[in-house]
């Protein structure tokens, strides 16, 4: 959560599956979004409304560049999730199995009771005070199981996850309310595998799997250092869509394309990119890592200085410091002539 400082917070666990980088924990997703300008693309189906493609849910697919930036800033580690799961599942003994299944069952019961309670309340509200039958039926209900003991069963393994769940449920069941003891409880499919993770400490940077970064990484890291938010560039035929703030709120400023320092750029590409960019109110941005050259020494300070006014205002909040090598960028706009 926002209140946690980066020192207290364990490393974000990026799950690497078949060369892709995924995030499953919404707390991690929001933390990175708020503090590290990582938005990326939600690629999963939202179970509350699974027949649409407008709103997408977990997991979040990171670009390899994003995963690499997070590793370099020492906020995340990348774990090969297929091997991890097979190893951990094979080693899961009966005791932990029982604890885990029971804790899930208890959560399921509490969720179901919360739903029943809110339904009852809705009925009461709708049908008014005149009907006393409602009260009768309510007295039939027996005391629920002791909630606190249920929570204890979760133990340290599950505590993280369950707390999150209960925070997010709209109605917290109160022990004074009478509820049916007979609920079987929902069967739950947890979003993350936190039950399989060692309770503490979370995996360290040394256990991080490698990230296969593309050639355009320097440009990405440079823009990220400057406080921009990047999204995959497929929609505009570029490497990155570059946003001055959270894409939830802001239009992107640039369509960014990476070139090597000595890579040839055809003028037609520049004209086409500039034209497309201007027609959608974006700058066409080209850039790449500077290859060391004795007489280029001053450009670094030059660009850094000259860009100060254009940097996004929340750059100071960006943690972990800059990670990019020296990069030089150019922006193209139609001159309107």
């Amino acid at each position, binding site marked *: 959560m926002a209140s946690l400082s980066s020192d207290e917070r364990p490393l974000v666990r990026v799950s690497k599956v078949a060369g892709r980088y995924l995030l499953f924990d919404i707390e991690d997703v929001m933390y990175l979004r708020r503090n590290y300008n990582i938005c990326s693309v939600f690629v999963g189906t939202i179970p509350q409304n699974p027949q649409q493609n407008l709103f997408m849910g977990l997991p979040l697919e990171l670009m390899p560049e994003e995963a690499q930036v997070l590793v370099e800033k020492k906020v995340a580690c990348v774990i090969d999730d297929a091997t991890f799961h097979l190893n951990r599942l094979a080693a899961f003994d009966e005791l932990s199995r029982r604890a885990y299944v029971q804790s899930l069952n208890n959560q399921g019961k509490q969720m179901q009771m919360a739903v029943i309670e809110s339904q009852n309340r809705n009925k009461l509200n709708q049908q008014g005070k005149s009907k006393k039958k409602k009260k009768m039926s309510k007295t039939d209900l027996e005391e629920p199981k002791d909630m606190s003991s249920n929570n204890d069963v979760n133990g340290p393994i599950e505590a993280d996850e369950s707390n999150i769940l209960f925070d997010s449920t709209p109605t917290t069941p109160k022990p004074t309310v009478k509820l049916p003891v007979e609920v079987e409880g929902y069967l739950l499919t947890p979003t993350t595998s936190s039950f399989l993770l060692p309770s503490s400490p979370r995996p360290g940077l040394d256990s991080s799997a490698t990230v296969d970064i593309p050639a355009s990484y320097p440009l990405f890291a440079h*823009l990220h250092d*400057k406080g921009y938010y990047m999204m995959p560039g497929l929609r505009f035929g570029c490497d990155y869509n570059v946003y*001055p703030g959270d894409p939830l709120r802001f239009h992107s*400023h*640039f369509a960014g394309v990476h*070139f*090597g*320092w*000595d*890579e*040839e*750029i*055809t*003028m*037609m590409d*520049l*004209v086409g990119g*500039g034209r497309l*960019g*201007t027609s959608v*109110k*974006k*700058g066409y*941005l*080209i*850039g*790449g890592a*500077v*290859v060391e*050259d004795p007489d*280029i020494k*001053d*450009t670094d300070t030059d*660009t850094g*200085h*000259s*860009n*100060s*006014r*254009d940097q996004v205002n929340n750059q100071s909040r960006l943690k972990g410091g800059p990670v990019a090598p020296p990069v*030089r*960028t*150019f*922006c*193209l*706009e*139609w*001159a*309107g*002539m």
Partner: protein
Amino acid sequence: MVERDHGRQLADTVLDNLKYQHDWTELQILTHSPTNSELFMRPMVSGLPPRRLYVHPDDQIAMLKSSANPDGKILDTPEVEWVLPTHISEKWTLKKFAAVFDSLPAQLSAHPDRPKRIVLATIHGDSTIVYYLLHDGLVKPRQN
């Protein structure tokens, strides 16, 4: 030598186009950097457009806010622009663009802290010329 002639020809074409089609004035072709008087990679054209060619988005907003100039009169005080002539068949690199900018003096405008800017003129085979603004760094797009 061939490159020099090629560059000179492109510069001449662009100068003519700016002069007769776009009504630019004070046009001249420069072969040497005014800062260190070294030879340019290729000749550049400098000139004064009839109207202000570029207004930074921050200035746009400032002008909208200031009621003193509702018609945006500042827009009409032109600035000297530097034009880099290129041909559509050429291939450039980041390194070459960087070298062009490094040989230019700092912007002669009210905001010397802003990135340098040139006008990129690209000549097509049918002698059409397109003009794009090229900034030396991250400059947010105008919001016309």
